[in-house]
């Protein structure tokens, strides 16, 4: 398992950064992209000071078609052949459907769905022709249920979850392995920690550390697994979602998120 080259989107923050560090620790070469150009430079430096791997960076707004094209051209010119794509870039905006702007809502779809598919499509065009190709979609535990107050986000992650399974089947004969990662809360930054805390004990037990998730996700992808739900409790939740009718879980989640969001807003104030 040496000499793999991995493209990571959303690489300068949270989970993306954890993936970048994990891949570097495994000795993989990495092509990092993020909308935050300065952040890319920082993490590139940090990785080069710790690991002996090639790190390529190219800032890119993945919702912008021509920027993605220049990223792909950059990779081609650098002679990069991809073995793995980690679709990490994604966003959420807090707030109910009617209490936030329409632009916020459509942006969730543009980034989480449209841009992710665009990147996947184009990354496949520069895959290494020999050997396997691995794709990871960062779905979410939120994909397991309809989620009032996070309706758009959860549905966008559900899209990725279903899409991931379907694409995996479709590209099986082309030696492409597709994994859907469905994490619960992750302590990616100080804001997330506050949000996790606001959920109380539920937040605490559904939270997994980033480095573990990153490490296991890569292992699972390399083993050709299709779904990874990190954490025992989270796996239980995802099983429950298949047994209990959606109408009931939706009600439960609504009351839980309602409380959590109130608490979160108070903490912010």
């Amino acid at each position: 398992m040496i000499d793999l080259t991995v493209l990571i989107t959303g690489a300068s923050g949270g989970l993306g950064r954890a993936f970048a560090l994990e891949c570097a620790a495994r000795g993989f070469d990495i092509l990092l992209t993020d909308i935050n150009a300065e952040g890319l430079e920082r993490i590139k430096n940090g990785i080069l000071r710790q690991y002996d791997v090639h790190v390529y960076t190219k800032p890119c707004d993945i919702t912008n078609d021509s920027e993605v094209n220049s990223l792909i051209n950059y990779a081609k010119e650098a002679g990069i052949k991809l073995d793995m794509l980690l679709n990490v870039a994604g966003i959420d905006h807090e707030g109910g459907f009617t209490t936030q702007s329409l632009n916020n809502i459509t942006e969730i779809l543009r980034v989480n769905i449209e841009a992710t598919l665009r990147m996947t499509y184009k990354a496949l065009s520069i895959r290494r022709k020999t050997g396997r190709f691995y794709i990871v979609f960062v779905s979410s535990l939120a994909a397991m249920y309809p989620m009032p107050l996070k309706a758009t986000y959860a549905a966008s992650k559900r899209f990725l979850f279903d899409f991931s399974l379907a694409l995996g089947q479709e590209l099986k004969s082309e030696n492409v392995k597709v994994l859907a990662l469905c994490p619960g809360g992750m302590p990616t930054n100080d804001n997330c920690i506050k949000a996790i805390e606001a959920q109380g004990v539920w937040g605490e037990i559904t939270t997994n550390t980033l480095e573990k998730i990153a490490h296991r996700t890569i292992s699972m992808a390399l083993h050709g697994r299709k779904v990874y739900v990190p954490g025992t409790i989270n796996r239980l939740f995802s099983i429950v979602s298949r047994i209990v009718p959606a109408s009931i879980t939706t009600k439960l989640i609504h009351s839980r998120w309602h409380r959590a969001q109130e608490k979160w807003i108070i903490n912010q104030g």
Partner: protein
Amino acid sequence: MKTVVITGATSGIGFAVCHELAASNYSIVGVGRSDENCKKALELLKKEYPDVPIVFFSGDLSRQIEVLRVSNEIRAYIEAKCNGQLYGLINNAGCVRSYYMTTEDGYEYQFAVNHLASFLLTYYLMECLIKSKGRIIMTSSGSHKRMKMHWNDIMFKHGYNPLLVYKQSKLANLLFAYGLNDRFANHGISAYGIEPGLVKTDIGFKNTGGLVKTVWKFRKREGVSADIPAKIYSFLLNQAEAPKGLYYDKSGEAEYSRQVNKENADRLWALSEQLCGVRWG
């Protein structure tokens, strides 16, 4: 008037040290993470010590690029107002994290803030310190004892334990002080680590969760006011002749771990240079 830079200066031990030193007529340069807290701290101090020069610079020391920016601002200030001379640097800013989290540079948070930021800030300010035969003080802790450096996984990527990571960072503080004395004593520099004791600060509440918070809630009750350890800092700066020890607590020179030795200090020094992308001349 002698100038002292204090990081983590807007609350807890750092703020108490600002009080203590302003009262002893040192000119104060505080560093804090948030602009708002810096303004508040400055206002409070100015009210009490209207005649003492006090400034604050804000910056997020977890980010190496910010350490550079803040250092440049401090250096410009020292050049303009203090003849380029810095008498004291108190590397006090520290944090606790409940989870393995990385800074934007890709380093574990506690290691980056509690050690690497001090290393880098000291590097940038060394020229000014040498001009004044300065003293450098780290807020270390008795918790550095019964701890070894995790050389093969310095960032605790595997098996993160917040307490061990904190202990290691405090051991690193002492090793850094050791390394500084080793290299810069002949330039007139003295470096120390301080054991402040258990102090009523909010370190365990800032951006932590669950267990760390709960434990700290109980521990904090036993703590003393931050004014008490602040006296150790002023003691070390006030002596006309630089004290010879490495590690001090409220009763004077204290014993430190045998892990604090030249071998470990040199190894940490080389690693820190590597991770900060700098070379001491």
